[in-house]
């Protein structure tokens, strides 16, 4: 278990509802994440865990509910001005399952884009921060390469560097290793563990139960649009209350 819980709430979701084509995916979810925590969201496919994560940076807009990141609060029941959405997104960073690095930019540019274009950071400072971030994920020397020249694992590490360089209030990771060849997974997991150790607040959606158990400071289990259990990894993964969770975990761990 990692993470330095300092008590202050950084992310707060209240009453989040979301439907897709008539199917209610999230049924009024409440969630709080404290500063320095590494929260892992587990659950079967279709449970809504990815949708929940994407509500934090408004890539999915909830039908109802309140999302707060640091000082920015958005109530999705009414009309939400774009300015607020942008404010929200500027406090978060996301690592995608498919890395989604900008194909037309070098590795260095990929990391500095968020700083120079979005946050108006000066070019040399942005470059310095970017190089530091790349170094911390083990990608020194790759600054001038293009994503198409890198392996999946390397691209994902650049993606993490991009998130780090921004210094967000929270980093959101959406199944970061699901699209990787098995031999590349452990490298990326090591980087995530290292980042978690530095006290960055993270919310991690993943299928990898063992990894979640090792890196998370808190775990929630989502099923059919509701959080049905929450607690430390020991509590939820080793000794879950719900029998369905037990069943799910034994299936996943049997691999």
């Amino acid at each position, binding site marked *: 278990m990692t993470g330095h819980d300092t008590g202050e709430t950084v992310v707060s979701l209240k009453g989040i509802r979301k439907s897709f084509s008539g199917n209610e995916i999230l049924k009024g979810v409440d969630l709080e994440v404290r500063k320095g925590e590494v929260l892992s969201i587990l659950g079967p496919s279709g449970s809504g865990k990815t949708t929940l994560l994407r509500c934090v940076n408004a890539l999915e807009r909830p039908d109802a509910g309140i999302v707060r990141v640091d000082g920015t609060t958005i109530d999705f029941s009414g009309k939400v001005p774009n300015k607020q959405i*942008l404010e929200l997104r500027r406090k978060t960073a*996301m690592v*995608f399952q498919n890395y*989604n*690095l900008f194909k037309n930019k070098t590795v260095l540019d990929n990391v500095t884009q968020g700083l120079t274009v979005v946050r108006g950071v000066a070019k040399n400072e942005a470059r310095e921060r970017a190089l530091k971030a790349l170094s911390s994920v083990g990608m020194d020397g790759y600054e001038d390469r*293009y994503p*198409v020249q890198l*392996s999946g694992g390397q691209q994902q590490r650049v993606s993490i560097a991009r998130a780090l360089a921004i210094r967000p209030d929270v980093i959101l990771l959406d199944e970061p290793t699901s699209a990787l060849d098995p031999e590349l997974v452990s490298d990326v997991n090591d980087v995530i563990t290292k980042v978690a150790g530095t006290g960055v607040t993270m919310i991690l959606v993943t299928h990898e139960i063992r990894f979640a158990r090792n890196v998370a400071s808190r775990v929630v289990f989502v099923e059919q649009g509701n959080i049905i259990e929450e607690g430390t990894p020991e509590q939820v993964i080793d000794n879950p209350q719900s029998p369905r969770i037990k069943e799910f975990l034994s299936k996943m761990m049997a691999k």
Partner: protein
Amino acid sequence: MELDYDFMVTDFPTVLAGLPKTLILTFWSTLFALLIALIFGCVILSNAPAFKQLVVALNTFIKGVPLAVQLLFCYYAVPFVAKWLGSIGIYDFNPRHIPYFPAAVVAIACNFGAYITDVVVSSVKAVDRGQIESAQSVGMTGLQTALHVIVPQAVVISLPSMTNYFIWLLKGTSLASLINVTEMLITAQISAADGYQYLEAYIDAALIYWVVCAAIEFGSERLFKRVGFFLKPARA
């Protein structure tokens, strides 16, 4: 075969002198066609209710009418338009110099603009959705996303189709010869009129068109290799 080979050689420079005029016509037509395509493309991509349908209907109609008909239409329309522009003071209308060149540009630009609109729309749609979400997650506004991510990638994606249409457009300028516009084909015809050596003149013209089109195709392939390398799909 009974060909006046001497004439073919001596007439060649004369026909070649018509090439710049063809290229100028191509340039202006391409410019306006791109302008039309960008405007129409944005309308279609924005999904604006009535405008999108209007634009799509207009394009469908234009694509179903031969360029020759469009050229002739503009040819007969231009005296009226020029006279009207003269009456409101924008244009100095001289009945002895009717502006057929702009008429040709309008016809060709509208025709190809309709086709290129489709290229614009499909290129933008071909940009991976993940790239856009990535930009959003980093906090870019819509405009920033368009400028830094969508437009650069869409332009490269569109290159093969665009050069294809460019070559078609260049070949299409030869139809402007039907409405008295100076370009290479009509230059060839005029040079042959005296001695009735049409075949020789047409062979010269055909060779020049062939070389120019082949050169453009070759050049664009090289360009695409250099600029488009980043488009290969990422390995999982």
